[in-house]
């Protein structure tokens, strides 16, 4: 990609990041969600370290998944409402590339802060320190898939009036394997079993999602602006 073709993409990314900073809450909301879940679990099921330690990877993953849902509703909505989205098909950039940039900014805004503060959440649930690195690695591999699948769901429901309610139903079945392999890796590690197969499967899912999902997302956006 030459400099001139990359420029609009970088501009789009910077615009989204700037907008997220000005609106403030966008990165804060997933974090608030993560920590309210992590704080409520011990209160709900009792503060015993053994139990919390066993469920910590799964709980952090579920909290990360659900917090990722929060910002999805508005991912394409404002661009759709003010007509920016239609310009994507008029411009020279391939739409798939623009979709990728959009998803990239979504990941930077919502997933990265959650990953950055996961060590604290892991401490609150007594996750052993040696498993923390692996948990972070699964989050790094898995949350981009969530952004991709979430972006697809967001694009599919764009033209509907109460699309937000559908997002969870659309995302859940597609994200199940990511959840299973990610938490499976950490559990296997804690049980002293090899984690390599889980990580390789996660990488495979990521590659599959990165190469195919943006195409479907672009097609869904296209059908919604018709």
């Amino acid at each position, binding site marked *: 990609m030459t400099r001139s073709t990359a420029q609009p993409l970088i501009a789009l990314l910077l615009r989204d990041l700037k907008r997220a900073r000005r609106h403030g809450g966008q990165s804060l909301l997933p974090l608030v969600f993560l920590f309210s879940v992590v704080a409520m679990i011990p209160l709900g099921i009792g503060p015993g370290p053994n139990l919390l330690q066993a469920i910590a990877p799964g709980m952090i993953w579920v909290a990360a998944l659900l917090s990722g849902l929060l910002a999805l509703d508005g991912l394409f909505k404002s661009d759709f409402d003010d007509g920016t989205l239609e310009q994507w098909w008029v411009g020279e950039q391939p739409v798939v590339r623009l979709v990728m940039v959009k998803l990239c900014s979504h990941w930077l805004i919502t997933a990265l802060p959650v990953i950055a503060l996961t060590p604290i959440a892991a401490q609150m649930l007594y996750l052993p320190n040696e498993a923390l690195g692996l948990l972070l690695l699964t989050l790094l591999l898995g949350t981009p898939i969530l952004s991709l699948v979430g972006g697809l769901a967001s694009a599919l429901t764009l033209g509907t009036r109460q699309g937000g309610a*559908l997002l969870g139903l659309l995302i859940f*079945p597609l994200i199940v394997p990511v959840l299973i392999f990610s938490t499976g890796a950490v559990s296997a590690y804690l049980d002293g079993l090899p984690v390599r197969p889980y990580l390789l499967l996660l990488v495979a899912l990521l590659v599959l999602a990165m190469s195919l999902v943006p195409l479907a997302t672009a097609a869904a956006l296209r059908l919604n602006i018709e």
Partner: protein
Amino acid sequence: MWTQTKLAFHKLGSPLTFFRFAQALIPWLWGLTLVGLAVGLYQALYLVPPDYQQGDSYRILYIHVPAAWQAMATYIVMTILAVITLVWRIRTAEIMAMTAAPIGAAFTLICLVTGAIWGRPMWGTYWAWDARLTSMLVLLFIYLGIMGLYAAFDDRRQGARVASILILVGVVNIPIIHFSVEWWTTLHQGSTINLFGPSTMDPSMLPPLIWMTVAVKLMFGALLLQRARNELLEQDQRKKWTLQALRMSGHDS
């Protein structure tokens, strides 16, 4: 010969031709379904010997297995229809893809419920988070997602096209369901029926399964044509062909 078949196939894109086709086929499909179900159920419940381990409770498989196969087959049919919808934008294909989803969801539910009823005495539990069971549950949610997405659009045709994309994305789950018993050795037993080699099921237990499977396939055809026909009539109730078609089949308005 080939051109004529192709022409007849293309003509199904016209609502009126589709209506006539469905009208002509539905009674036959239902009739054959009933014959198949009667023979299959009679054999399954009375003729087939009890299992040496499970006694009579294994007989539920004659509903469970055909329903499970049809749950997946419905999705494959929907995938083909979704491709036709997105590539050629044939309206009857859109309607068939969308009306197939609730049927697929129903067969998935039948599969899950009969499995749970059988699992209680055999496995000692109604439900287990086993790979096969979980992927089947995921299939149910995909069906529900497709139905929900289609219903959320005011414009039916737009809804059908957008939901078709979801159908194509969700198809990744089908091989996962199929191979789940081979990839993960969890609770659900492996496949005993083998199309390309000897099955491990006793031959005396096989005929009712074949009858039931064929009957369920025919039932799916009847349900699909019937639902698609009704949806077409409902969407086009103010159009000229609808009146024409209804008058032809003896419903004077």
